[in-house]
């Protein structure tokens, strides 16, 4: 009896996750925010015992997220990223280092400052990409640049996590542990490269064949989780392991099959990971409200400036630059992943992530209109303009 109650509780929770995401989507609230909200509210009625049933998904969340990012990469693609490195570096310079210094000034130790800067820096791939799709802006010149910078940020975030996790583990930047960590990473990359060069071509036909099996999903999930967790145990980041594994997957039939088998599982796991992030955080206000408000303000201003510069470097017209700069503020999944490493950073991050995700989504929606105000379109013979979706006033 007790058991079936917890069971029902968890599955009701799943339905609530859907409903909240679905309803809030109507008012342009990104799904990640609705999952976090459900997590907070669940504190009041879901027993911690019940949530043990879905711990596996929580573990799988980050691992699958990074595995899928790895899938999107290939060595050829990395070569095509040459045009993006300047905008990417500008984005990093503006959104990482100033906040790192600011955190030090506010009395945080270097490790916490690194983490705060890590939460502050990356825009949300899922939110920005979804908004570009929903608002029919994929054909615009900025889509290419924004997605490019997002990919650059993904890489930086993976490197950051690989560095931060061992540092957070040991609780100090011990000069003795650094060479060991570096050695581990070099070793992993070497093994990975050898695997890619020597073994992958040999087993690829077998992979393509076996990916047709119904039971393939077991092998897939098992392998990804084992690699991820082993990396974690070895004091590296599970994100790195999952990402590398994703890069290894050849762009053949097996790739399609993997996406088909795992994408629903990934949605579920990452949603549950966000849920836990909120569910397991204390509902206390951050110590230093001034600092949090400053972070939010900077999070908007610095991103807008850096994206404007990035668009300038990318050779865009003035009007497009303005529109682009207002479309990159939302923070999301990476900030959550980095914040989850350290409880004290978590408390600071929650309001920051909420505010930037919501304000950023709003700015994204009004960006074209703002650009029109500053640079009015040339008057043409009157023609029916396509109606843009109104913000916050959608009749469902």
């Amino acid at each position: 009896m007790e058991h079936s109650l917890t069971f029902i509780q968890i599955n009701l929770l799943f339905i609530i996750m859907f409903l909240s995401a679905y309803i809030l989507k109507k008012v342009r609230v990104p799904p990640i925010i609705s999952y976090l909200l459900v997590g907070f509210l669940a504190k009041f009625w879901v027993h911690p015992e019940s949530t043990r049933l879905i711990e596996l998904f929580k573990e799988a969340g980050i691992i699958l997220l990074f595995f899928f990012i790895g899938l999107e990469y290939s060595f050829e693609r990395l070569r095509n990223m040459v045009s993006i490195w300047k905008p990417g570096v500008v984005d990093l310079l503006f959104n990482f280092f100033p906040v790192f210094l600011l955190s030090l000034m506010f009395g945080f130790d270097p490790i916490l400052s690194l983490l705060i800067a890590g939460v502050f820096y990356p825009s949300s791939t899922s939110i920005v990409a979804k908004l570009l799709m929903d608002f029919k802006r994929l054909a615009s010149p900025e889509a290419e640049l924004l997605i490019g910078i997002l990919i650059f940020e993904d890489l930086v975030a993976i490197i950051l996590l690989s560095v931060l996790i061992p540092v957070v583990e040991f609780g100090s930047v011990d000069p003795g542990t650094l060479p060991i960590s570096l050695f581990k990473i070099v070793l992993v990359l070497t093994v990975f490269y050898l695997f890619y060069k020597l073994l992958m071509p040999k087993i690829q036909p077998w992979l393509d064949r076996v990916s047709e099996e119904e039971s393939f999903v077991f092998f897939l999930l098992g392998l990804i989780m084992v690699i991820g967790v082993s990396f974690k145990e070895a004091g590296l980041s599970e994100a790195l392991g999952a990402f590398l594994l994703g890069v290894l997957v050849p762009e053949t039939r097996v790739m399609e099959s993997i996406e088909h088998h795992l994408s629903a599982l990934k949605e579920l796991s990452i949603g549950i990971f966000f849920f836990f992030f909120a569910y397991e955080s204390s509902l206390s206000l951050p110590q230093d409200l001034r600092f949090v408000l400053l972070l939010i303000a900077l999070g908007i201003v610095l991103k807008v400036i850096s994206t404007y510069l990035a668009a300038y470097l990318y050779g865009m017209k003035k009007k497009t630059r303005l529109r682009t700069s207002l479309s990159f503020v939302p923070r999301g999944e990476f900030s959550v992943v980095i914040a989850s490493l350290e409880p004290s950073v978590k408390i600071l991050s929650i309001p920051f992530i909420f505010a930037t995700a919501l304000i950023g989504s709003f700015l994204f929606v009004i960006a074209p209109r703002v650009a029109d105000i500053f640079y009015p379109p040339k008057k043409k013979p009157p023609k029916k303009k396509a109606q843009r979706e109104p913000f916050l006033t959608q009749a469902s």
Partner: protein
Amino acid sequence: MRFRETDLPGVGKRYTLELEDGGELTLIIHNTGRRELYIIEQEEEEPTCVISLTEDEAKDLGFLLAGTTYQPVAPEKMELIMKEMVMEWVRVGEGSNLVNKTIAEAQIRKKTKASIVAIIRGEDMIVSPDPYDTVIKPGDTLVVVGTRQHINSFLEYCGECYT
């Protein structure tokens, strides 16, 4: 015709085609298989229209655009609608009023305003049959031309006839 291909990792692929009139046509093939076509006119920032297609719809449209679609026509029933004119294939039954009459005898033009432009008899086809010579037999298929109304009155007059 210049195609620019760009990768949108995580989303799909984007192809931009510069059109002769200075506008741009952008095709986005999503990883999910969905296609989106954006038409952006010259000097415009916003797309004038966006067309979203499923994978199957896109493939059908592609065939049509390439002009390679060939749809076999059902021979027993084909309507060519050219503004007002309708062509109808009419099979003459045993008990039809037209059986064993020539077209002139039956006064088809006068009574129904429709004209018989061809008669299909077995393997043969008599194109523009002579109204005084050609006798209509049961089992013939008459190719009749007229407006919808003419054809209807022809069918009524014909009696036991099938389309």
